[in-house]
Every structure is written in C-alpha cells, then in structure tokens.
C-alpha cells in the first residue's frame, strides 16, 4: 500500500507495473526528453538545425517548430488513431480540453503534435510511469509548476523571435539575433536553476541546463551578451541647477570590460571592418557583430535544436494540467489511475464525459465497477439514458490513462490495453452502396480486421437497424467470437429480450451486464447498475419528446384547423 494522495486516494500500490522511475540526477544529459524513459531525439535534428540556422540568419514567417513537431517520431505504440479518433471527436477534444494556461493567458498549442502523442500511447509501461511521475511532481509542487510554466513561456518567446512571426527587429538583424541568444540563455538558466530539486524526469532539465552552462559555447554566449550590454561603464557627475536644467557634466571614470574576449582595440576593430569588406561583406560594425553572433550561435545549435522537441513535451504536460484545472474548476476531480492486472476488478469512481464538459454541459459523474477487465459488458437502457456518453467516457479514460495523463474520474483502477477500437452509430452517407444491414456488416468486418488481442472495444448499438431475430443472431456471433481476443469490450444494445436471455443462460463466457439506473419517475439518473433493462421506456421518451398518441393527434387537429380557417373567413 502507498500513502493516499489526492491523485491516488485509495492508496493502492501498483501490482503489475514497476515503481515510479526518476532519471538519475546530475548525469550529463544530451537531450532534455520528458516523454520517454530513455532520452531520445524524436525530431529530425539535422533538418531542424538547418531550418533553425536559416531562421536565425534571415527570420522565417513561422512554422519551423510546428513543422518539425509534425514530422517528429512518436514512441512505439500498437494503437491506431484511425480506429477511434474520429468517433471520440479527438480533434476537438485536444483544443477544447487540453488548454495550456500560462503567464495569465491561454497559449496557442501545436495541436497536431499533441493529437499524435495522445492517440499513440506508448507500449512500454515504464514510459507511462515516467510521465505520471512528472505530472505528480508538477501537481504537488506549485514552485515546480511555476518554473515549468516560466520555461514554457520563455520557449514561446524564443519561438516567436526565431520564426519572426511578429516581425519585430526585422529592421536590425543583429539586435534580433542578440535577443534570440538572450532568450536561449534564459531558457538554459531556467532549466539549470528551476529544476535542481526535481525528483522525477524533470531532473533531466536541470542536468541538461547544467551541462550546457559548463560548456564553452555557453560561456561565449554570456561573454557576447555582456559585450553587447556592457562594453564599458561610465561614472558620471551631473550638476543640476535650481531651474532643473543640467549645468555640468563630468565623466569621473570609465571602465572598459577589457577582459571580455570580444573586446578589441579601436585600431583592430577598424582593421577587422576592412578585412570583412575585402572578404566580400559589407563595411561596418554591424557586419563584425553579425560574424561574432553567428559564431556563438554555431556553438550552441546542437543544444538549441532540442528546444523544438522540448516545447512539444512541455505542452503535453501543461495540456494535461490544463485539463485537470478545467475539470476541477467545474467541480469534477481527475486522477492518475492505479495500474492493475487484467484479472483484477475495473473500478472507476466519479467517471464523467469530458466532451460534455468541453461544450459547456456539466456532466453527471457515475461509478463503474466490473469484477475483471477482460470481459464484454452489455449495456442496456432507455434512449438518452447516457449509454453512448458512458462509452465515450470509458474510451477516453482508457486513452488518457495509457498516454500517462489524468483521466476524467475521481479514482480508477485500470489495466493496459493493446489497442482501442471505437465504433459509434454510423451516419448514412450519400454515396453508400449498402442498406443499413449491409453497412452494419461492413462495420463488423472492419472491427475484426483492426482488432488486436487484449484491446478495448467500444460498440454502440451493435446490429441495430436490422430485423430483430437476424440482428440477435449476428449479435451473438460477434460477442462469441470477440471473447477469443480477450478484449475489454463495452457494447450497447436495444435487444433487451435477447440480452436478458444471455444473462439468464450464461452461454457466453465473460459477459457482464449493466443497465441505466432510473429514478422512481422513470427518468434516467445517468448512473449504471448491474443487470439488463426491462424496457426502453419508449413511451416515456415519446412523451418527453412530444410523440405520444395524444400529442400527435393534437398536432394533426391543429394543422387541419389552420388549413380550414381561411375558407371559413371567405364564406
């Protein structure tokens, strides 16, 4: 057992997964990778370096960072986004729920990269633990989170300057480049000083920053910035008269930073300008400065290139924290689930649908408890009872859990899945060649083509829209064959009689049954209880939606009266 915390209220110790892993402190780190246990460069470093060099020299109109992250490699994953992303509305989930708030404002994310990270959770559980440890540390240490946000904001400024998005400094190239170098120094210093006490993978930031600070390129950078900011110090005495005007101006002392390696004598500076002119450059102090700036940048580019990947990593964690803040601001707690074995119970408390929350609807949390994970759960109940929303919630929870971030539940015990396949109701397409039965069969076919063993399967209204007896036959076939793959399956159906028969006969192993819990007035409570629903409450739904017999008749009479009224007036 572990000590309970807000993120682990039950105090469960992980059974199957290893302990939280932190990076060895103060070992020199070449890559400040925050997503993988073994640090690696996922962007194309050589291409990015070239692009960054050109951007530094000339200033591009944006896209350097997002292009590199779009092409970045993702940690190995058996999940395929095309099997679930569309049905879970992930393209809108990321920008709506993973909001990065830093520095008092909302940041603009590299959405494509975040989408890729979330839809390709890692195979290696150690990576999940590595990421969770970082999130725990950021959640529990406000100072650490403040440094994390400060680092992110500085990286954003660096990105803005080097991509030349705002157009600032285009009139003075050297001034722009010095500002970029100044921001690079600020980033390195922030990494070295802000994360020295980190115990999780955040310690890599400190190790990386310290390594760079001890290198010659960083010292040259510091000297160059010092040369730019403080070539000399003048002590002045200014006399001011009674009228407030300056009467006298005396230079008391002049101190030149002669020890700075960039400081040369006046005649040498002149000769350097002439030398550059003869070599084909323009004549002037700016060209001298440009050469020195370029030399300093060249020494740092192997380290600066990692800023591109780092900003994506930071957005991943800040997005997750933003999701937590967003949910908790609506009174909905989130957590990092406990990882358990497949045969252990699935226990989820306070589960809610974040898509509803993203659209401004406060969801009603529910609890879910199944005796083991590798089962097929049939869910029945009236329409608009919350079945589809439950499916979305379960699927999103599994997705976020395996990505290593917070899930929309107060607490959870979950096991890992090798993949996720989600199929909600298919909408009719104008070019479809089959009827509803044919489309449903194609859907089933596609399911089995992409379904690996030990995956999570989410199916909404399997075999609906067909003749009930044939549909039930197909339903039983699908459910029976599915068990061979040992999935974690959640399937909704309106075949109530058939479902009740399955529950009673127990002829298919590993089936479990949940039904929508109803209030005494037959209204759905959006909670779920074991068992099969007895009715779809069609009449109640009809009455609620205005399609009962009495309501329809009233409508018809009203329309007839409307039609007859002009004829009576003429008569």
């Amino acid at each position, binding site marked *: 057992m572990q000590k309970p915390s807000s993120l682990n209220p039950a105090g469960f110790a992980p059974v199957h997964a290893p302990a939280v892993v932190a990076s060895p402190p103060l070992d020199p780190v070449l890559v400040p990778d925050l997503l993988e246990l073994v640090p690696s460069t996922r962007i194309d470093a050589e291409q990015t370096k*070239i692009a960054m*060099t*050109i951007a530094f020299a000339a200033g591009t109109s944006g896209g350097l960072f997002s292009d590199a992250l779009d092409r970045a490699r993702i940690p190995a994953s058996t999940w395929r986004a095309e099997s679930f992303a569309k049905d879970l509305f992930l393209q809108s989930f990321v920008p709506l729920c993973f909001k990065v708030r830093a520095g008092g404002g909302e940041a603009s994310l590299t959405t494509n990269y975040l989408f890729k990270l979330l839809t390709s959770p890692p195979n290696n559980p150690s990576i999940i633990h590595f990421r969770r440890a970082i999130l725990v540390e950021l959640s529990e240490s406000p100072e650490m989170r403040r440094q994390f946000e400060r680092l992110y904001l500085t990286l954003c400024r660096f990105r803005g300057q080097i991509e030349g998005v705002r157009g600032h400094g285009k009139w003075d190239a050297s001034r722009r480049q010095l500002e970029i170098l100044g921001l690079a120094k600020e980033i390195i210093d922030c990494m070295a000083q802000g994360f020295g006490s980190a115990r999780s993978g955040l310690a890599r930031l400190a190790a990386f920053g310290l390594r760079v600070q001890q290198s*010659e*390129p960083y*010292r*040259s950078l510091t000297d160059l910035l010092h040369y730019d900011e403080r070539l000399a110090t003048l002590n002045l005495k200014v006399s001011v008269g009674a009228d407030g005007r300056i009467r006298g101006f005396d230079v008391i002392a002049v101190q030149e930073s002669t*020890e*700075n*390696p*960039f*400081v*040369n004598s006046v005649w*040498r500076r002149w*000769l*350097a300008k002439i*030398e*550059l*002119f*003869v*070599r*084909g*450059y323009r004549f002037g102090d700016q060209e*001298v400065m440009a*050469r*020195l700036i*370029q*030399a*300093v940048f*060249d*020494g740092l580019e192997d380290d600066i290139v990692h800023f591109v990947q780092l900003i994506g990593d930071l957005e991943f964690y800040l997005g997750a924290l933003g999701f937590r803040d967003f949910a908790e601001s609506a009174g909905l707690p989130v957590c990092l689930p406990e990882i358990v074995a497949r045969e252990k119970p699935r226990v989820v408390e306070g589960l809610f649908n974040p898509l509803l929350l993203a659209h401004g609807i406060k969801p009603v949390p529910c609890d879910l408890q199944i005796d083991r994970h590798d089962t097929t759960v049939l869910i029945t109940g009236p329409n608009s009872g919350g079945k589809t929303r439950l499916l979305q919630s379960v699927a999103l929870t599994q997705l976020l859990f395996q990505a290593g971030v917070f899930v929309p539940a107060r607490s959870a015990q979950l096991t890992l899945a090798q993949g996720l396949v989600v199929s909600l109701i298919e909408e009719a397409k104008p070019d479809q060649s089959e009827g509803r039965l044919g489309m449903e069969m194609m859907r089933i076919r596609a399911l089995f083509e992409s379904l690996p063993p030990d995956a999570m399967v989410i199916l909404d209204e399997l075999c609906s829209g067909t003749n009930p007896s044939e549909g039930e036959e197909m339903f039983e076939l699908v459910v029976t064959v599915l068990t061979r793959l040992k999935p974690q399956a959640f399937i909704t159906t309106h075949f109530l009689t058939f479902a009740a028969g399955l529950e009673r006969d127990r002829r298919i192993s590993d089936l479990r049954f949940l039904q929508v819990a109803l209030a005494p007035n037959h209204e759905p409570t959006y909670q779920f209880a074991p068992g099969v629903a007895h009715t779809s409450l069609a009449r109640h739904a009809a009455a609620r939606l205005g399609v009962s017999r009495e309501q329809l008749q009233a409508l018809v009479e009203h329309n007839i009266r409307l039609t007859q009224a002009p004829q009576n007036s003429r008569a």
Partner: protein
Amino acid sequence: MSTLLTNRKMNPALRARVEASVSGRRANGATRSRASQLLLKAGLRVGIFGVVAVGVFAFVRARVREHREIEDARAAVLALVRAERGTWTGLDPAATTRSESWLLLAARAYEGDFIAETLPNTAALATVLERPALYVRGPIDSFTHSAGIAEAASASAKDAFLLCLIDPPSSREEKALLPKARAGYSGGSRVSQHTTHVSRLHDLEAGLPLLFYPWEEELNAADTRTSIERLETKFKTAPFAATKRAAHAEILIFAMDEPKTGTGPTEFDGECSHDVRIGIVDVAAAKVLLRMRKHVDPNWISDGARAQFAKEIDGCALAMDVREGLGRKK
C-alpha cells in the same frame, strides 16, 4: 585562415567558429556556395582594390618623381645663382631701380633745360663722359613704366648719338657726321672702341635682378618643369660680365624721343621731325648734370644719306647740338 575578429583572449573553439563564420565555411552544402560567393566577391574586391592601388601608387610615384625632378632643376638653377652671386663684390640691388627712377622722372613734364655748374664747358663734359656710364635711348612713352624701360633698354644700342657725344666729329656738317653715322649704324668695334666704359642699360636690366631675392622667389614659386627651364635659360643667357660693368656705372646718359611734330615725312629708319630730351645724371651723386631738349628734323640731310642714315646723322647732329649748348652756357 585567421581573422582580425579574433584575439588571444578567445577560447580556441570560439576562435575557430569565428574564423569559419568569416570565411563562410560550414560543414553543410547550404553555406558552401556562400563561401564560394564570398570568395568570388572578395577576389573581385581585392582585384579592383589592387588595380586602384597600383594606379594610385603609379600616379603618386610619377608625381613624386616629377616633383623631385623639378626640385632638382630648381636647386641647380639656385646653385647657379649663388655661384654667380659669389663672384660679385659690392652688389647693389638698387642700381636698376635707381636708374629707372631717373628715367621715370625725366619722362614726366619737361622741367626745362639745365646744365650743372660742374659742366661749364665741353671739356668738363668730356671728363664726365670718361666715367663709367649707362646709356639708353627710346620713345618717351616707354620711360613711363618699368616694363617700358626694360623694353626700350633691350632695343637700345650704342648709337651715333652716344658716339658723337663722347667722340665728336670735327664739324656739324653732313660730311663730317656721315662716318660717325655709319659707325653708329653698323655698330661693332667702330663704336665700342670709343664707348668701352659705357654699358647699355639693358646689360644692367638683364642681369642684375637675377641675382636678388625677388627673382629667386619667382624661381621658388615655379611649379612646372617648363617654367623652371625658362628661368634657367634666362639666367644662363644673362650677360653677367656686361652686367658687372653696368652695375659700376656712375653716369646715366639717356635720350628720349618725343612724338613726331609737324606733318613732315618719316624716313625709312623711322626718323622724323621731333623733339628729343637728353639727360646726363650722376647716379652715384644723385645729381642731374645736364637736361636739354633739342629738336631734330632729318629734312636737312641730303637725299642720299637720309634714306639710309637719317636717324644716325640726326643723332650725331643732336650730340653736336648738345655740346654746342654747353659752349653757349654763360
């Protein structure tokens, strides 16, 4: 390749990167072309700079050489001047000015005939005329300014007037005057043997100023080879031997021909009816010894002699008139 942008304070790695930045060398191909572009530009600039530098160098060298040659030429002429000056004793820079002053004075409104007390007769005149003297004759308009004086002096030679003044003929008749006129006309030893102690004013004007500072200043101010050569020629052709004699002159003898009077003819040699101002000045004592104004008219001369020797015969007759004027002095 090292660069002046680096120094010993820099870390070697930084120094290498600065050198690479300056030379445009990079590991990737994207900037290799930049290096070759820079190299081409640098080559062009070095080439142009080299051509301009060579041109400027050649121009400056030519100017320096020309200047050196001018200075050498100038120094050579100055050396000549100093060498010549070194052979003189008692050099009087005012000699020329003094003579010119008397001439300018005599050319003004005529003050009337004058004979000094020390010239009571022709014998006294002869004594005076034995002293070293300067002689000049010319149109009176020439004697109103220094340049005119120099011009008149260069055109004025020892003539029959001077010869007859110093060595008068036996009578004033044409027959007696004619040998003197011929001698004056042809010049040469027939004049010089009687006038060796008399120098032309031109001898003084041509040589003496070249030995003093104003001319040396003109030489120093000359900034072209041509002008220096001109001055050098002037110096080398100056009659310094005659100038030395002229510089020791004590007497100034002059005759100023006034404009033609009347409507009579003008002879082939320019002689016509006109007045002549004659002057003898003791320049050493700064006294006028003689001032006369006589009329000449070649009309009296026979046709044969007049055509060729009118001026000389009139000149000799004029000298006789001057001598006669002394004889009639009371």
